[in-house]
């Protein structure tokens, strides 16, 4: 229980997907213009993460590893299998959202199918693959489906926190006088850099 909580908090603040690893930057920069769409995308990313990570965990430990059902080390296939799982689940989420909430479907638009190529989701699966082999005493160790879900939820919420924060700053920034060559992309990068520096103060956090 303690480990679950520590994994969760660490993945929000210390191992934040955006500020520590720069994962999911493309949609992070593209969709952070208004707070409302940022929240919608954040929820969608968190949901896809929470569903895909346990599935990929089971694939990695039961099928691909040397003591899985085939008895041989198939981990070189992991890239293809992980991305197939992610693409399939994104498609599923898209269909469910379209069926039950057409208004949310319309507001997310093209970004819903693009979650499949969001690096944060693929990245979480690849980090999980590295964390399985860590020692049990390591705070980053993932040793079961519950750990995987906790890590996925934390990473998703961390990502959402980052995108909502940036969207709020950019909404205010629309009123400020930025030098012309920096306007738009340039100043956004600097703002993200400053936010990342602020998040560095969490890196000594011990739970």
């Amino acid at each position, binding site marked *: 229980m303690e480990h679950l909580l520590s994994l969760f908090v660490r993945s929000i603040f210390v191992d934040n997907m955006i*500020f*520590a*690893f*720069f*994962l*999911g*930057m*493309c949609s992070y*920069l*593209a969709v952070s213009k208004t707070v409302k769409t940022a929240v919608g995308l954040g929820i969608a990313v968190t949901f896809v993460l929470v569903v895909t990570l346990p599935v990929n965990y089971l694939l990695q430990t039961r099928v691909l590893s040397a003591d899985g059902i085939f008895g041989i080390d198939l981990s*070189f*296939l*992991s*890239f*293809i299998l992980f*991305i*197939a799982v992610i*693409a*399939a689940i994104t498609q599923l989420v898209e269909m469910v959202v379209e069926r039950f909430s057409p208004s949310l479907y319309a507001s997310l638009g093209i970004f819903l*199918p693009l979650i*499949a*190529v*969001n*690096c944060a*989701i*693929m*990245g979480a699966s*690849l*980090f999980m693959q*590295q964390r399985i082999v860590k020692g049990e005493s390591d705070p980053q160790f993932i040793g079961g489906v519950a750990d995987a879900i906790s890590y996925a939820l934390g990473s998703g919420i961390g990502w959402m926190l980052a995108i909502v924060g940036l969207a709020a700053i950019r909404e205010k920034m629309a009123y400020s006088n930025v030098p*012309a*060559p*920096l*306007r*738009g*992309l*340039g*100043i956004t*990068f*600097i703002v*993200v*850099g*400053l936010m*990342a*520096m602020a998040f*560095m103060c969490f890196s000594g956090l011990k739970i």
Partner: protein
Amino acid sequence: MSQLFSKKNKEVFATPLGLNNPVTVQVLGICSALAVTAKLEPAIVMGLSVTIITGFSNVIISLIRRTIPNRIRIIVQLVVVAALVTIVSEILKAFAYDVSVQLSVYIGLIITNCILMGRLEAFAMSNGPWESFLDGLGNGLGYAKILVIVAFFRELLGSGTLLGFRIIPQSVYDAGYINNGLMVMPPMALVIVACIIWWQRSRHKELQDK
């Protein structure tokens, strides 16, 4: 032969290196561009890997573009890219193990690199194999160029070395110079990319946002 290197094809190859750079203008592939640039060597390896993969995935998708059903094209593209990335990752593990450890998950993340999907969707799905190959190489090299520039400054100012060789002499350190530790931390990568964008946009007014 002259047709292979016509003016249009040269343009397809050259614009991503400058005015239509994938990182600073199209804003694609930022994730790995920032994460692997603390040292020059992994940045060069990463740039080359991405160049090779964009080139060949563009050719493959361009060859089969008429047979891919529209609804499942993203999955087909992902599978082609994932297969190429697996090959590159295994080659790196075999011949450049140290670099592949440094790059860790970011080699696998080439699959979800937006440059690849962007070029496949925007170019390879509607152009012939040879043009697509040039476009892939051009975009890959445009990406590699930014990576090398960022890594050059981060390694020089952050560790005082280039490719592992000491550049800043010991006497300078004795005189009280200290490496800028912030340079090797993630946030400075963002600020350096912002400076490159600043420089590029102040030279080319047409790129500026209104």
